[in-house]
């Protein structure tokens, strides 16, 4: 019974927030309403006994992706009177058509049989522990090796990002010289050894 009530409250929150997100005039408001939608859906995952999915939903979508949106909005500068004039006029009818097709697919596939032969629906979750514990168990036993390698991969992704974002690979002295030259051409002047490099 409680599950039923919570589902309808969260469904109403998600729907209301989604509609007002589409209609919002201020991009920051739209981003915050998107967070509301995502949190409401995370609660629905919890109702389905998918605790890990709920946590991932909040961490990845609400935590990382929407924050990224907000960063972009912040960097581009937020104008209260954001122009809502659509530069691509065909976008709106296309969105409506795609939405209708998506809804039809969803209705058609409910309870339908998939390629594996079993109908979609809640899977088995018996045995010990919730699914967080079971995911953790397989992550730290049978999939420990790729998990460890992923750790190094993530470190290197950060290192690579910093390397590319750093303004220049030059030692500080040369970097100053570059700034004085006020453009990005080759700084031959500073080192004697640069003359025979960077080709082809």
């Amino acid at each position, binding site marked *: 019974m409680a599950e039923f009530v919570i589902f309808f409250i969260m469904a109403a929150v998600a729907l209301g927030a989604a509609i007002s997100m589409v209609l919002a005039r201020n991009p920051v408001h739209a981003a915050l309403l998107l967070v509301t939608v995502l949190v409401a859906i995370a609660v629905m995952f919890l109702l389905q006994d998918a605790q890990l999915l709920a946590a991932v939903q909040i961490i990845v979508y609400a935590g990382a992706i929407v924050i990224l949106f907000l960063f972009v909005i912040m960097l581009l500068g937020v104008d209260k009177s954001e122009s809502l004039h659509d530069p691509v006029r065909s976008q709106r009818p296309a969105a409506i058509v795609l939405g209708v097709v998506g809804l039809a697919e969803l209705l058609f596939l409910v309870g339908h049989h998939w390629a594996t032969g079993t109908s979609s629906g809640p899977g088995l979750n018996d045995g010990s522990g919730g699914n967080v514990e079971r995911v953790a168990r397989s992550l730290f036993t049978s999939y420990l090796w790729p998990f460890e390698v992923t750790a*190094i991969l993530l470190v290197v992704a950060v290192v*690579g990002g910093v390397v590319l974002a750093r303004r*220049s690979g030059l030692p500080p002295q040369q970097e100053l010289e570059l700034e004085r030259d006020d453009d990005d051409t080759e700084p031959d002047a500073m080192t004697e050894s640069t003359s025979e*490099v960077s080709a082809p």
Partner: protein
Amino acid sequence: MNPGWDFHAIAPEIIISATIIVVLIADFFFQYRRRFQTSQLATIGVLAAMVPVVTLAVNGGTRQMFGGAFVVDPYSLALTGFFLAAAYVTLLLSVDYIGDGDYYQGEFYVLLLTSLLGMMVMTSARDLITIFVALETISIPTFVLAGWRKHDPKSNEAAIKYYLIGVLSSAIMLYGMSLVFGLTGSTLLRDIALAAPRTPHTSLLIVAVFLTLVGFAFKVSAVPFHFWVPDTYEGAPTPVTAFLSVSSKAGGFVAMLSIVFFGFFAVPDTWQPALWVLAAASMVLGNLAALRQTNIVRMLAYSSIAQGGFILVPFAVAADGHAARSSFEAVVIYLLIYGAMNLGAFAVVIAFARRTRSAEISTYGGLGSYAPSFAVLMTVFLLSLAGLPPLAGWFAKFVMFRSVLDAGTPGATVLGVIAAVMSVVAFFYYLRVVREMWFHPVPDSVNPEPVQIPLALNAAIGICAAIVLIVGIYPQVFARIGELAAGG
């Protein structure tokens, strides 16, 4: 539950991981004037990692961890040794190129070593998730390395193209893998091999295997997934290009070997036709396009596409006749030999570019008259790539054709004929550079004064030349490695 670590088996990976971290931190403390110490640390790490590879090979046998997801056997050790050697040569090529350049950053070595780590993980991976993580560990650092010359628009273009296509192919491959998991219920190649022939959804399995292979086809730059190669190879720093064309490409082939031979060997209908087409298209298009190139790096890019086609030939015939064993051997041996000769050719290109800052083939005119030793070495590498005995390349071609003969089916014969014709075509563009070096006058733009070539670069060229000559004359060396890799 203890996953059961076997620290001897993962010692090479542990050493390289430790080196990555040490290099990353140590680089902060080295002064710019003494920046070469960073490369020395990286080199020491790579050489140290070879020690456990040797001790594991001496101990012999097969070691397993994580329920068979990680396997150390002669096959994985042979290729780990190859990747370490190729990375060592790449470090020798990079030291002066990166150290002298306007683009020096110590992180270069961190990225290179991480890509190497991905390759080492790949050789032992017998599980789809590990293979995927290994492939990403190979690729992501090389995206950054390709764009290393940040102020050069060509380098930016190289990185962006490589990145976008790499990410796209990863997504396609991951989709294929998820279908494989759905059909077979496991990510372990051993379990997939048992479940794949029994699945009733054969058509879906074909789609799944095809999508998985498409991801690797991008990585090994097989036609029609090769569009990024010429631009990326030309725009990236040349040592990085050498690394991409040898190590990164071999990484893709290792993944293909594991997936095809350990995962889907019992269902050849799912992969054989696709690989046949990829092999034929890569050989034809790679060789014909290489004929028209005027820039040596672009020519080597198309040549590497063509060589990739030759390596795909044994795959495409593996399930026919009694070719299973000889085709496995052929791929391993071809990869080892291709690595040595291609790294050698790029090493000479890098050394030559120190003199002329050019990669146009026309500037190679008269190299034989003012730098005969370089011209001889370049000739050796190019003729080896073409497959002329007694250089190592002929043995690579020989094992490839042997697998075709072992297969003996009409499809294999047609592919063999295409390979033979295209091997002849390849002579034209390799010999064009040779002719330019020996029979053409020195162009005015080139100053024939001798240029100091750093020791590291000379060492790299020497190592590659020695391998090409020794293996060409005593092919038993690599033949034995190939036999061991294929299971004793």
